[in-house]
């Protein structure tokens, strides 16, 4: 299938040789391309279907606090830094593209269902307190005064005003529009091979046979990042697909207001979230499964999600179920992204964002654009070098050599 390429016939035509090629047109790749072009670079982006992968499936939670995990404090700082950039990032993008990006600063309510779940939530509250994050413990009744449709079984909650949402699909559309404004050439084609000459990445060969050369290649291909042919073994640690099944329901006008903010819960030990959209959609997600590149929706996956979501908000049983799908998160060995120069000169990584791809879009884009322009990663994005797993033989990043 040959889709038309985005080109602008007048003013600053795209040169034959771009400064940078971005492989992958999910949110990360699109935003990197946009920011790099704003910095004056000539950028080409390659993706057969931009925004169709994890960026399409995701729920768009911008939730550094409710996603905080023990032992991942460095990632938390990056997540918080990116969340702080969101309002300006969106305002600028909407200004350039003339398209709304669907950002809402409505907060998140985390709730617990049984006494075991309540203990888990109390643990999270204590963790927030130690970290100095703003979150307010609530009783079950206080939760229900915020969200009257919550089940009376809800025992306790945690109100996190700083965890926001964005409509990731609207964000993709806005970024694509911004790319045309910035004269980024979007090649709607698959990358057949990474081109390497004298141990330097020099470009890519597309599935249609064309080759593109550039000084730098940015790898932003999500869960496919380390399965691109031509990538030398050990250039970066393995990125594996982590499957997530996710549902979309629609809230009819008669049922509005349904939920006023994102609600996430631990229901008998299982995590579920419900994210309302301005235009009447309710996103319910998501499973976390290690199933390779499988994107089939399963009865068990949908059942588990609906069971947990129905436990929290019984009234969802009345809503039309409009979409079921599975996406693949790009998982790195330590759940944190790989950002910056790789072991292969010329190849820059912007991948491995796992559960935080949407949230980390602004800071990734800014940092990688800076890296492309100056060769330096900005300070607040340091510590996520692709080579951080080191060369210790036991580290299974070495395993990439065999993969």
């Amino acid at each position, binding site marked *: 299938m040959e889709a038309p390429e985005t080109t602008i016939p007048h003013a600053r035509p795209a040169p034959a040789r771009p400064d940078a090629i971005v492989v992958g047109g999910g949110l990360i790749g699109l935003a990197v391309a946009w920011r790099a072009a704003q910095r004056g670079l000539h950028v080409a982006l390659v993706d057969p279907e931009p925004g169709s992968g994890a960026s399409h499936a995701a729920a768009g939670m911008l939730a550094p606090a409710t996603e905080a995990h*023990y032992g991942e404090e460095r990632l938390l700082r990056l997540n918080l830094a990116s969340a702080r950039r969101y309002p300006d990032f969106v305002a600028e993008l909407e200004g350039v593209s003339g398209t709304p990006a669907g950002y809402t600063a409505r907060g998140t309510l985390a709730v617990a269902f049984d006494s075991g779940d309540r203990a888990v939530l109390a643990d999270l509250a204590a963790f927030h307190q130690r970290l100095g994050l703003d979150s307010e413990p609530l009783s079950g009744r206080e939760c229900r005064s915020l969200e009257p449709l919550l089940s009376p079984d809800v025992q306790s909650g945690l109100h996190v005003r700083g965890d926001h949402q964005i409509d990731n699909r609207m964000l993709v559309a806005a970024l694509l529009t911004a790319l045309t404004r910035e004269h980024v050439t979007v090649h709607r084609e698959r990358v057949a091979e990474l081109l390497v000459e004298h141990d330097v990445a020099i470009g890519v060969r597309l599935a249609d046979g064309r080759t593109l050369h550039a000084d730098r290649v940015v790898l932003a291909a999500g869960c496919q990042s380390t399965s691109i042919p031509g990538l030398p073994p050990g250039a970066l640690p393995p990125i594996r697909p982590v499957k997530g099944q996710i549902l979309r329901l629609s809230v009819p006008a008669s049922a509005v207001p349904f939920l006023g903010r994102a609600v996430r819960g631990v229901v008998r030990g299982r995590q579920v979230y419900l994210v309302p959209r301005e235009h009447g959609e309710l996103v319910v997600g998501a499973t976390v499964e290690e199933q390779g590149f499988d994107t089939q929706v399963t009865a068990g996956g949908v059942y588990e999600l609906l069971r947990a979501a129905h436990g929290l908000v019984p009234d969802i049983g009345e809503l039309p179920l409009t979409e079921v799908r599975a996406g693949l998160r790009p998982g790195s060995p330590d759940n944190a992204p790989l950002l910056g120069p790789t072991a292969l000169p010329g190849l820059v990584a912007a991948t491995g964002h796992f559960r935080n791809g949407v949230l980390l879009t602004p800071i990734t884009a800014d940092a990688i654009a800076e890296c492309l322009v100056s060769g330096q990663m900005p300070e607040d994005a340091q510590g996520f070098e692709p080579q951080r797993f080191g060369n210790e033989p036991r580290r299974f990043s070495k395993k990439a050599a065999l993969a």
Partner: protein
Amino acid sequence: MPDTFELGGKSFTSRLIMGTGGAPSLSALEDALLASGTQLTTVALRRVTPGTAGSILDLLNTLKIAVLPNTAGCHTAREAVRTARLARDALLTDWVKLEVVADEDTLLPDPVELLDAAQTLVADGFTVLPYTNDDPVLARRLEQAGCAAVMPLGAPIGSGLGIRNPHNLELIVRGAGVPVILDAGIGTASDAALAMELGCSAVLLASAVTRAQEPARMAAAMRHAVTAGRLAHLAGRIPQRFHARASSPGLAESPAF
């Protein structure tokens, strides 16, 4: 002479078997596995797909830790047998941790389905390690069915409630002619030590480590606890007495009575 642990014709120096469920990340799991000193680690075949680069199986392969596939998520003997056979084909091992649960809220073993599945898999040539209730009679039946070990629970999976019925566990150990492995319920190090003191041959645990705030540190604690409990079991504990007995006796004392 090293205190080795014989299981299914193989010999292990570590008596701690690790599960992998609930790990925050593969890096964290790697650190925990290394800290635990485990030589055998169980993976749910329904939850992983062999052949994915950078997956958990890749990690275990690199660390040279033997993989024990389990049938977690199965509710009937038929499903469990099918899953075990898929595991044998995919992972080239005829060992299986047999798990057939009765319901999702308790995850307790279904004794009838479990015994049926065990008999079928033993006849099929598997080395069967069944996750079972703390029921001495069922343990005996599983041993009679040809299982290579019995693996009673201390408390429900993931509950961290410890060993709720130590007496039953002792009855199982006394009656068993195969290794008894405490499987499920461990919350902290003293639980693992108790299991070993009661005469278990090994301890299998996952959540207590993978969901701890610092998994690697808790894994090290479990390693030491299993060793401590084993040594205490071998050393033979003193009788419990109602009244004190000075540990620095007078001259007159020499016999134990």
